[in-house]
């Protein structure tokens, strides 16, 4: 196992983030792929493509330059042995979560601040892996209906939402939470006490879709045909092995020509 660390940076990185990253990588085989001062999504695409070229890399660990990484975080993420796992972290001081979860805890979409994926997972993406030319219109129907739309011009983020929604497997939301650092003010120059004023955001309000109340459900019968029945009855039959209840879908990617192009 070898970790390709993808470390996109706007040109500066918090030294504590660097320390925490190196601490997490201790005793592991790894290579860090930096991006300096590139815009999103190039700051992700360039280092990840470089990391993919090295066939020794089996996992890709995305860490943004302002994250607060708990001790032993990476070991815990690797131990999950899933194709993709992300840590939640606050996007704002009052704890707005980076991950939107289904009621059962799976990430619908999340940030790229702390994300571990396998080679197989990331190789399945169409190129470019990260893109910012797609926005998603959301409609809350029976499921969360998300419709892609091409955008031109200035955007902020979006690479992470599209990356999550087009994932070949659901991205697991880790129980380990991260924090985010914010530069409040640069320290004074030409003095021996010129440290910067940096805030640490660690409060997090988990963001979950509300449970959809179901009374009736389509079930799969033993001969493969579908039947619509009362959910309680379906559960009894499922216990007896007579029917299979399909996993509930919470999100529907609405088909259009944009989805066709990017999938």
């Amino acid at each position, binding site marked *: 196992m070898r970790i390709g660390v993808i470390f996109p940076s706007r040109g500066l990185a918090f030294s504590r983030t660097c320390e925490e990253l190196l601490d997490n990588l201790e005793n592991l085989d790894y290579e860090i792929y930096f991006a300096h*001062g590139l815009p999103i999504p190039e700051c992700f695409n360039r280092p990840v493509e470089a990391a993919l070229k090295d066939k020794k890399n089996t996992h890709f660990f995305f860490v943004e330059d302002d994250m607060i990484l708990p001790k032993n975080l990476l070991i815990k993420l690797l131990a999950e042995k899933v194709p993709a796992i992300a840590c939640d972290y606050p996007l704002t001081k009052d704890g707005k979560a980076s991950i939107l979860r289904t009621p059962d805890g799976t990430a619908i979409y999340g940030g790229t601040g702390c994300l571990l994926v396998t080679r197989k997972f990331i190789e399945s993406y169409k190129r470019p892996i990260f893109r910012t030319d797609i926005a998603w219109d959301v409609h809350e129907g029976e499921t969360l209906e998300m419709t892609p739309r091409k955008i031109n011009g*200035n955007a*902020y983020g979006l690479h992470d939402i599209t990356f999550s929604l087009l994932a070949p497997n659901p991205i697991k939301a880790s129980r380990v939470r991260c924090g985010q650092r914010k530069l409040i003010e640069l320290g004074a120059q*030409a003095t021996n006490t010129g440290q910067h004023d940096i805030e640490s955001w660690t409060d997090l309000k988990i963001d979950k879709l509300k449970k959809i109340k179901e009374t009736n459900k389509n079930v799969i019968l033993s001969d493969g045909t579908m039947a619509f029945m009362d959910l309680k009855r379906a559960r009894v039959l499922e216990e007896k092995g007579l029917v299979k209840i399909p996993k509930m879908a919470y999100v529907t990617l609405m088909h259009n020509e944009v989805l066709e192009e990017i999938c």
Partner: protein
Amino acid sequence: MALPKGILKKMVKLNYPAVALDYPYKKDGDSTVLHDPQGYALYTGTGFLLVWREVIDKMPKPIFRTDLAWDTRIQKHKLVMWPRDVSKIKTYGLHDINFGLTMWTNGMPIMVAAPAGQRKLIALGPKNTNNGAHIIRTISKVGIDNITKTDNEEEKLKWMAALSQVKTVEIMDHIPEDIEYIEGQAHLKDGTETII
């Protein structure tokens, strides 16, 4: 710092107690190293400094101190430096000069391995945009021994000319008898001009 590729390996290979890099600290053309006539450093910056453990262990503690400033004069082919207590005033740096001079006076002057550069943040990038790169400039032209903090070219040339005549160095542990301080600046008591 802006570091030459593979420089740490080269510095380790030198197998020397203390090895540093020379780099401009404020703008292209200045320097953080002052050399003695033999080419060793009287002091360097601490931007990229490799030191043996034995050296660090034997250094007087605290290893880095900022309570002493060093004034310099060049007179009759001799460069003289003496300390001044600045513990009561706000200072910038000095830890590096004190470290270098401790090494030099103990017969273990720092070796300078190579030139390097320094990065300067010109402006923070804008927030909430995908194009939020910070503006960072790298200064990498080293003006050997140009440790003067002046922008005055004439002063700089005077310093470099005097330095080129230096044959010996003396590090004193007290302020010379013929020096007095006026508004924090060292002057010769008899008022004659010299490079200070």
